[in-house]
């Protein structure tokens, strides 16, 4: 799939997420929009996954450790064909399977781990990456973390173990949108220099524009890592990316768009309502 096609999918996903948020009155729009491009590059370019065989032993594993980006993941998995898009109509409904965070794998095809409490996805992903070595399989593990999530000590516990174990099939992508729920991530708990932190923890680290499809697709091929190290990609992103009045405005962590705002957003995205 070429870059233009990936960008087109990302546009469609953004539109779906926005209308979904309005329809179901569910939050985390800003967080979803900031990671859409990462998810699209992963599922439509980097990951070796087969929606018809979601439990294939050699598949790559993807964990959305920032579980509050679930609406983005749910739409990408549907587009990829893990389940019909029509299933998403039950999002947030009583008795349905789509909560505001990813459920356990038994409950939805394509999900590798239930997340939502931050700081869990990387340790689980590390366990999966080590399992590939133990079981002599060739898959990679990709975990997407938020910058706020890097507040959690378990992230850094895991980073140290991945380095000591010289895990070469583990890729962490930080959706670095500079915000967490209630403030600038740099001000809440000093994060910078984020790339140097990962390097100091023994990882190979790179910085990219997290909305540039070319850079994202290139990042996906950094694992397996030839130097035998885990890889962190610091993806600079914009919270609310794609809609001018949502971009870098942290109110959209919890705000629900009105019908007028949905129309304006669709217009900007160039997607028909």
């Amino acid at each position, binding site marked *: 799939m070429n870059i233009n096609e990936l960008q087109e999918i990302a546009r469609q996903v953004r539109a779906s997420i926005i209308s979904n948020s309005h329809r179901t009155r569910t939050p985390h729009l800003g967080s979803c929009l900031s990671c859409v491009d990462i998810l699209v590059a992963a599922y439509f370019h980097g990951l070796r996954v087969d929606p018809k065989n979601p439990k294939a*032993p050699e598949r790559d594993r993807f964990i959305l450790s920032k579980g509050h980006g679930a609406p983005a993941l749910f739409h990408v998995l549907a587009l990829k064909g893990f389940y019909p898009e029509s299933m998403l109509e039950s999002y947030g409904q009583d008795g349905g399977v789509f909560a505001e965070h990813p459920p*356990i*794998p*038994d409950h939805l095809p394509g999900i*590798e*781990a*239930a997340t939502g*409490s931050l*700081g*869990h996805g*990387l*340790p*689980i*992903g*590390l*366990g*999966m*990456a*080590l*399992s*590939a070595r*133990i*079981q002599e399989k060739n898959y990679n593990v990709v975990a997407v973390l938020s910058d706020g999530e890097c507040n959690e*000590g*378990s992230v850094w*516990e*895991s980073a*140290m*173990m991945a380095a*000591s*174990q010289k895990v070469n099939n583990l890729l962490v992508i930080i959706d670095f949108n500079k915000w967490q729920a209630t403030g600038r991530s740099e001000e809440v708990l000093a994060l910078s220099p984020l790339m140097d932190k990962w390097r100091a923890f023994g990882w190979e680290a790179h910085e990219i524009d997290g909305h540039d499809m070319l850079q994202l697709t290139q990042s996906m091929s950094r694992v397996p890592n030839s130097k035998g190290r885990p890889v962190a990609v610091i993806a600079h992103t914009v919270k609310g990316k794609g809609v001018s009045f949502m971009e870098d405005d942290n109110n959209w962590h919890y705000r629900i768009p009105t019908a007028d705002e949905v129309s304006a957003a669709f217009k900007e995205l160039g997607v028909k309502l």
Partner: protein
Amino acid sequence: MRNAFADEITKLAAIDPRIVLLSGDIGNRLFDKFKKSNPRFFNCGVAEANMMGVAAGMALSGLRPVIYTITPFTTTRCFEQIRVDVCYHKVPVIIVGTGSGLSYARLGPTHHSCEDLAILRVLPNMTVLAPADGAELRLCLRAALKLKGPVYMRIGKKGEPLIHKKNPELRIGRSITVREGSDVCLISTGTLLPVVMKTAESLVSQKISARVESFHTVKPLDQETLTEVFSHYALVAVVEEHSRIGGLGGSIAEWRVRQKGLKGELIGFGTEDEFMHEVGSQDYARRKYGLTVENISHRVLAALGKITA
């Protein structure tokens, strides 16, 4: 007990390539044999939250991780990882808490664990085991590896006496009758079984015949045995090296209150709702909380109306 664990897990891992042993920077020398014969040993460092998540990731990949660390650090320290990564995902991670209860009395309250049964048994999907001796431990470990979901097993440290001279038949969820008796039923869980057995022997001189049950499984609760016992005995005493809040006694009390027509009165022995500030040996700590032959016999006799309390 820890030597029995190290020996048994080494043997089991030799024949089951799915078994992975994870330790939180403890067990120096204890796992030398395992490490020598098997590359599937991971010292995860002093980072228990990560260790629990790693184990869950391994179990989601088809392996059978077994975690071994001092009880508070593999329970209270990483409780959310146990709840979300292990129990919610319903993966077969076996969590072994060593030095549980008051085994490490001398190390101070940071190393005591009199809350673990309470907080682990409340988690959905979790099986909770408390073997009495090395023999029960080996059998519990083998049985746990056959389950498809998470297991927590609290064990002692070292030097606990072997009660079962030969291997009993052990099934998870069914207690073991260690001694027959007709006047009172003493229910023991974990490493207090030797004290409970001696209590039963001392009651003989008072013309009281005591049955002893070893509840190596705290959850799922052996309701069949409990129904039988509470129907036959006027008095049932639960003894545990755990807080009287929420442990096996608490669990039986929750069950007991929902039953109709059972005659047995329930009394419980366990630790107080407090941190033990004084330094002391495990025996000292047990004496402090009345987990002794003398105190248990005395209260049983009083409850049976043989003496005044």
